Every structure is written in C-alpha cells, then in structure tokens.
C-alpha cells in the first residue's frame, strides 16, 4: 500500500517535471552550445538582453540555454555553475551576482575547457576571460552628472538613490560621478548631499525618497542609477508634485508615464544602454572566444556581425573588457517609441 503511495508521488513529480518547459540540449550537433547565466529570474531588464543573445547565437547555428539561479545570490549561482560544469557546454556567459564569490567555480569551469565570458555585471578579473560592458563606467558617470548639472540649472543640492550598498555596478557609477565632480570646476556649485539605498524594493525606495525630500527641502535633483529605484522615486515625486526632479538609469516601459519636460512629470530625461545590442555583442564575443578568434587579451579585435568591429580594452579592475558604446538618452521625443522595445 505504502509503496504504491510513494510511487504515486513519484509519478506525480515525474509528470510535473515532464510538463515543464525543458530546454533543448544540443539541437545542432556541430553547433556551439552556450549557457547564459542570469542574476535571477523575473528581471525584465535581463530578459531583453537574454532574448537578443539567444536570437543571435541561434542565427549563427548554435544553441543557448538561459539558466537562472533560484535567488539573486552568489550561492545560488554557484549551484547553477556546478550543473553547467557537468554538462560541459562550449562557453558560459554570466552576469555575476557577486564580484568574488564565483571565482572558485568559474576557474573550475575554465580548467574543464569551458570558455567564460561575462556581461552586464562582471566577476573579478581572475574568474573571466572577457567582460562585455554595456557602457564605459566613466561614460555613464559623465552622462548622469551632466544630466544632474543640466536639470538643476548648474547649481544646488542633489542626491543619489541607489540599489543596495553592495551593488557593484551602481557603486562604480557613483564613484565615477564623484571623481568627475571633483575634477572639474564646472560642477563646483553642485553639492552631493547623500547617497541613499532603496535595496531595489519599491517600499524602501519610497521611504528613502521621502526622507531625502524631508531632510533637504532645497534638493533639486535625485539621480537613481537603478531601474526599480528610479520608478519608485519617479512615482513619489510625481504624485507629490515635488519641485525636485529626477534622472538616472531606467527602463523606458517603466518610465514612460513619468517622462516629460513640464512640471506634471518628474523625470525630464534618463539613460540606459542598448539592451538588444548588449545581448548581441555578448553573443558575438562569446562565439569569438570559443572559436579562438580572441583570448581576452588586451587590444585584440573581432567583428560582431552588423555591429561592426570591436577592440578589447583595459577594464577598471585590471582585467579586460569590451565596451558596447555610449549610454542612450530617453526623453519626450523617443520614449514612446522605445517603450515598445523595452
């Protein structure tokens, strides 16, 4: 009786497992097999780049498995990498949840002959062969700071609303902004009053935005270089008809409602990069790595399909990177068009 019961449970589990969308493994025998590892499931931001990555590789005759860890932690990504090392794909392209914690597993993968590229968020230089950067850190810092300068009218208080205090990308951009601000007299009348962290939660971001406005009644601009933070802050500022304006990095489809030059909108313009292009360039870079066209060394060049030629440059952490290009500006003119794309 009980054995029957147990086998019934098992059958249930098997039916469930069989019903799940299992990715095809190696449809084209001679094609390259690439695994794309995301930060966590349910991130619209990543999904766009992943789709474009997949389309590009498939058009070139390879196959892609997009794999997500169960949570946005390095621990969960380690388990995913363990699974991938068992499968021995030709390459792993990863957006890392932590700079350091993946080193052991990524080294193990490289030792097993798997090429390791990364994009969006890089693991440290010892754990990758190449990193595809969406936009140069300095360029992003420059664009954001210029936006702050422009929106504030050249002077006054401004604040940053970031993701978590540990978010590597955000910290790099904030540091870039700070160093640019110190280095140029143009920005001497701007005063960065605080860097607040909303942990990429709407609730906490709202609390933090409210606190910023309370503490600094003369605050002119908030710069939120994170998609969840900018949307939450935009909503708060717009609902309250605040005189404080907003800029930062965000998704056009999330920000469409808040973008405009008049007082009724809280965000005159903001930035992001070409997400489709990021996926595409990463795909070509990973393929070049597999084919031995590049090894990730400085000054190597390769052709990324219709994107053109790219050169490997030195990254801030001492490793190498490929920079996609300038950040894109989204304003009243192009927001409607771009919101349909992403």
């Amino acid at each position, binding site marked *: 009786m*009980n054995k029957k019961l*147990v086998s019934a449970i*098992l059958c249930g589990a098997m039916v469930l497992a069989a019903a*799940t969308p299992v990715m095809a493994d190696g449809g084209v025998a001679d094609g390259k097999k690439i695994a794309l590892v995301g930060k966590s499931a349910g991130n619209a931001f990543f999904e766009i780049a992943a789709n474009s990555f997949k389309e590009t590789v498939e058009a070139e005759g390879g196959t892609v498995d997009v794999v997500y860890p169960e949570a946005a932690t*390095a*621990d*969960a990504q380690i388990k995913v990498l363990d699974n991938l090392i068992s499968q021995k794909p030709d390459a792993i392209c990863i957006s890392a949840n932590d700079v350091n*914690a993946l080193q*052991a*597993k990524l080294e193990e993968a490289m030792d097993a002959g798997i090429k390791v590229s990364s994009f969006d968020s890089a693991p440290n230089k010892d754990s990758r062969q190449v990193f595809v950067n969406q936009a140069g850190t300095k360029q992003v810092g420059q664009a954001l700071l210029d936006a702050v300068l422009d929106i504030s009218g050249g002077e006054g208080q401004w604040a940053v609303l970031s993701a978590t205090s540990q978010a590597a990308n955000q910290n790099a951009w904030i540091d870039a902004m700070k160093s640019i601000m110190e280095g140029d007299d143009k920005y001497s009348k701007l005063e960065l009053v605080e860097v607040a962290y909303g942990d990429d939660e709407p609730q906490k971001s709202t609390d933090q935005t409210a606190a910023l406005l309370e503490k600094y009644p003369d605050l002119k601009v908030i710069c939120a270089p994170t998609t969840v933070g900018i949307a939450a802050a935009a909503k708060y500022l717009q609902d309250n008809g605040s005189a404080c304006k907003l800029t930062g990095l965000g998704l056009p489809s999330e920000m469409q409602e808040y973008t405009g030059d008049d007082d009724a909108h809280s965000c005159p313009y903001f930035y992001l990069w070409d997400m489709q292009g990021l996926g595409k360039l990463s795909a070509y870079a990973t393929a070049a790595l597999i084919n031995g066209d590049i090894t990730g060394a400085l000054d190597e060049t390769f052709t990324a399909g219709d994107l053109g030629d790219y050169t490997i440059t030195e990254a801030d952490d001492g490793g190498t990177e490929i920079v996609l290009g300038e950040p894109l500006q989204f304003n009243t003119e192009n927001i409607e068009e771009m919101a349909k794309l992403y």
Partner: protein
Amino acid sequence: MAGKSGRSINNVPESPIKHMIFSWEGILVVLFILVNIFCKGFSEYYNLENLLRQMPVYLAEVFLMIPMAYILVLGEIDISVGATVCLSATLSCMMCNTGAPFIVVILTALIVGTVCGAVNGFILTQFEELPPMIVTLATQIIFCGIAEIVLGSGGSISASNTDGFRLIGGKVGKVPYILFLVLILAVIFAVILGKSTFGRRVYAIGTNRLTAYYSGIHVKKIRFIIYTVMGTFCGLCALFLVASSYGANTTTGNGFEMDAIAMAVFGGISSTGGKGNLAGGLISAFIIVCLRVGLGQRNVHAQVILLIIGVLLICAVALPNIIENVKRAVKK
C-alpha cells in the same frame, strides 16, 4: 487524534522488520531510490562522479539541518542561521586576509558562529516569554547588518590566500571530505538525540516545557547549549561555503534557514516539537540534494524546481494522512 499524526503511519505492524519498512524513514529510503532512478533517466549527466562533484555546496547546508533538528524537536525555530553563516564567512575571510595561519581562520569561523548562537541562546533563556521566531528574526537582521557594516560599500570580500580553503574542499579519491564530516556528525548527533539522557530531555522539553521543568530538567541550560551548538555548525557551514567560493558577501547564506528547516521537516521532524529523529532528516536531505542536482543538470527553470520540491513537500506529508482518512471513512 486527527491533526496530530504528523508523519507517522498508523497501524504499524509489530514485527521489527515490517516496522522498519513501514516507518517514515523506510518510505524515505524508497523515495530516495526512486528519485535516483528518476534522475538517472532524466539527465544524461547524472552519475556518481558528477553527483559527488556537485554535492559539497549542498552538503554545507546539511550541516545546518543537524542542530536545526534539535531546535525543531524542542518545538522552536531558528531563522537567524543564514545570517550567522554570512557573518562568520565574512569574518573568517577577513582573518584569512590578515595572513593568519589557517587554523586561526577555522577557529574564527567557529567562534563567531558560536558567539552568535550563544547570543540567541542568552536572549531566549533570559526572556523565556519571547517566541524564538521573533528573536531570531531580529538577530538575523542584526548579524547580517553587522556583516554589511564590516564589509562596507562593495559588500564583498575575497580570500586572498585560498590554500587552506582548497585543503578543506579536498577529496579522498572522488569523495569530498565534507561528505565524511556530514555523515560522522549526523551519526554522532543522531545517537545523542536518540539514545542519550540529553536527547531524551530534549524530547521531554519539546513535548511539554513546563512539565520538563518541574521534573527537574535544566530547561534553560539545554536550550542555551542547543542554540550555541547551532551557531557552531553555522561556522562550520560558513567554512565549507567559503571553500567553494573563496569569498563572502552580504547575501552569503541567504535563505539557508528555510532549506535546513525543509530538510528536517520533510524528514519527519515535527515542527511543533517532541517528535522525529535525525535519520529521517539526513535521508530527506539527500533526496532533496539528488533531486535538485538531477533537475538542475537539465537546466529546468529554478522556479520550476522549487515548485516541484514544494509540491513534493506537501504531497509527502499530506498523502499518508489523506489515505488514512479515506481508510477510516471506508471502514465506518
């Protein structure tokens, strides 16, 4: 008695062999075999070599299940373990980067864990009215917060000298050290829980704390010891976790408490106290590990794996009860 018969099968035959087969542990063994047959058929990469290679990361969490079983038998819960792992991993990495000998690094991890556990134990024994869940929730936030402060902005640290961690992450042939350690510790703690006076006292407290107190059991002392040991095991988990990542960050250990509780409870340890044993917990831990590895090797979506484990968890506990109810209804 409906509602009380958590995971025991009623009408268990008297013969010891039959008793063994029809006990919850017996069912878990069968389930374990079936899961392995299923995984073998499902994933072409599922073999002993890969399983042993992928196991250490999961086994680090099994360390937590061992003392968690004691806490659950007490009828209590500790949700600060993930944060304790985070703090002790962070501090041991820092100690490692000062160039201290590796034995000091190991001691740092264990001592930090033990201190965190003792803090929980101290608060819970001084203010016995407080529910463990809220106290450990607060300490969870605090321990993780301290790790955040220590790590500063960036929130991540990498161990500069990985020799020691490579050593403890080593293997005998293909079998990682951690597997031996988990099994040895599980056996020792299972024997203590099942056969020693200390173990019987833990069950007594879990069944009725007040009665246990009045019959002369040092309730405070025992609870304090168990929470402290829980902390020590967190330190152990942290060490092996660092051995597979050579670093720590503010999300290290995030969610481990739920995994540990799930393993223990699936293994038949009652969350209301007084029932269950470690053998079941250990087998169920391996069932979950094998299932995760097998499904993961075919890149099944992580959320779907969690969904399957969730359904399995509910069904495994619900079905025996439902069948029992139906049987009783038919008899009537």
